[in-house]
């Protein structure tokens, strides 16, 4: 953190791939300076944000006494987690209040966390480590009532059941847009995002056809995961009928269209997300979410401009 300007560096590490997004925060505005498809060293004064994959994160719903101070609440949550899981090693804990006095706690073993940083070549401890799917969800306006948010990320996807702003359940899905993109690349020779950004009608048509062939499979996986997530909500026994809607968060317009065409009863509940900021075709939602999270650490964020 500098004196006159605050630089935020967001790293998105996925399957050995790294991307770096560098932005300046000033006057409630985030101005993106540069975007690199590789790892770029950060300055010691920068606010460093990294994503953290779900394979090292564990979650739990904890019943904690009503503590206002966040640091105290986290300490109590840590003690509770240690007791429940019988942990002796160092853990990083974070929790958000949920419904009925429960707290949605996430924790990661420090050894796992350090190993994750090391394997990705980051030798400084980041200021913020934010879970992958939640970084996408961060940019989406949360709607009142019970909503299911389906995040189709580039590398990880997930289903989050929410009541207003409280997380009720979270489930990771074993599909990613990158896999779909690979399928299309094998056929057309271009990535899905490249095709979408190019606006080449022929290629778009071609990839649409490919997507249609896998659409039912894709939709069945998603709908199955939604049903499981809703039915396994611990905090509140709910059914799919009481869900107000399902928000599909994906950057790919083609995938969105493919899912929305499906003739299932569930599709009627699907809606598009309302994003808090403008999206940029080159940058993934996850990366934007990470930079947004960095901005929140410094103050309010009204807009992200490039």
């Amino acid at each position, binding site marked *: 953190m500098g*004196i006159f300007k605050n630089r935020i560096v967001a790293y998105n590490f996925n399957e050995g791939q790294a991307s770096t997004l560098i932005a300046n925060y000033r006057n409630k505005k985030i101005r993106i300076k540069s975007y690199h498809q590789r790892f770029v060293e950060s300055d010691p*004064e920068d606010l*460093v944000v990294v994503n953290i994959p779900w394979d090292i994160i564990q979650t739990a719903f904890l019943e904690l006494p009503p503590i206002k101070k966040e640091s105290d609440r986290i300490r109590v949550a840590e003690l509770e987690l240690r007791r429940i899981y019988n942990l002796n090693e160092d853990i990083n804990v974070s929790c958000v209040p949920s419904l009925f006095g429960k707290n949605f706690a996430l924790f990661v073993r420090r050894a796992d966390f350090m190993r994750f940083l090391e394997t990705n070549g980051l030798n400084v401890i980041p200021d913020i480590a934010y879970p992958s799917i939640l970084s996408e969800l961060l940019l989406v306006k949360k709607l009142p009532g019970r909503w299911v948010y389906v995040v189709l990320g580039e590398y990880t996807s997930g289903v989050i059941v929410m009541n207003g702003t409280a997380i009720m359940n979270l489930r990771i899905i074993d599909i990613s847009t990158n896999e779909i993109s690979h399928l299309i690349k094998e056929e057309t020779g271009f990535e899905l995002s490249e095709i979408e950004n190019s606006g080449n009608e022929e290629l778009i048509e071609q990839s649409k056809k490919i997507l249609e062939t896998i659409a039912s499979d894709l939709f069945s996986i998603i709908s199955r995961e939604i049903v499981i997530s809703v039915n396994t909500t611990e905090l509140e026994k709910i059914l799919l009928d009481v869900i107000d809607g399902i928000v599909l968060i994906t950057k790919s317009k083609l995938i969105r269209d493919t899912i929305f065409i499906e003739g299932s009863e569930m599709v009627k509940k699907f809606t598009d997300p309302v994003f808090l900021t403008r999206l940029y075709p080159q940058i993934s939602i996850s990366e934007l979410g990470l930079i947004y999270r960095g901005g929140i650490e410094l103050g309010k964020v009204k807009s992200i401009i490039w």
Partner: protein
Amino acid sequence: MEKLNLSSGKKRVYKLRTFLILIFISILPAISFFSVSYQLRLLKISELLRSYPEVFNNLSSTNVDFLESQVNSLILSLKSRENDIKRANEEIKNQLVDVYKDTYFLRVFFNELSKTSNKFFLSGVMYDGQRFYIDYYEYGSVSQLSTETIYNKLNKYYKDFAVSLLDERNFLGDLKYFHYIWEGKK
């Protein structure tokens, strides 16, 4: 949800450059205060220079720090000079008075004499620089000299001044002579 953070948090560090800038910013008010006060002092001094050039023409240097002591010593030297002049003045005055006194009694004497119509015979005048003595005779039917006016005139300047009528005798017919002496000390 916004506040979720799974990192243990790194220690906040500042680069040396930032640290130095921070230090500079923190001491900036002090620096500006001193520089402004120094400038004000210079302004005040230049104002003084303009209004009292005679004082500052006599100063060897305009170094602000030694100004007060310099002005003080200047005041002292001026005071001693003033005393010297006063003393000299006094001396000159005394000298003048002294010289004046040497002849004053004679002037009064002749002045008084010329005012009357009587004749006079001056029998003796003695003056040794300190004491004077006048011995004379006045001829006439009455003495026209008023001892009182003479006394008033000369007693102011001479110590132990005395004017006395020693003798009064008929001389021819109603003509009389009056023997007077004046004496005094300077």
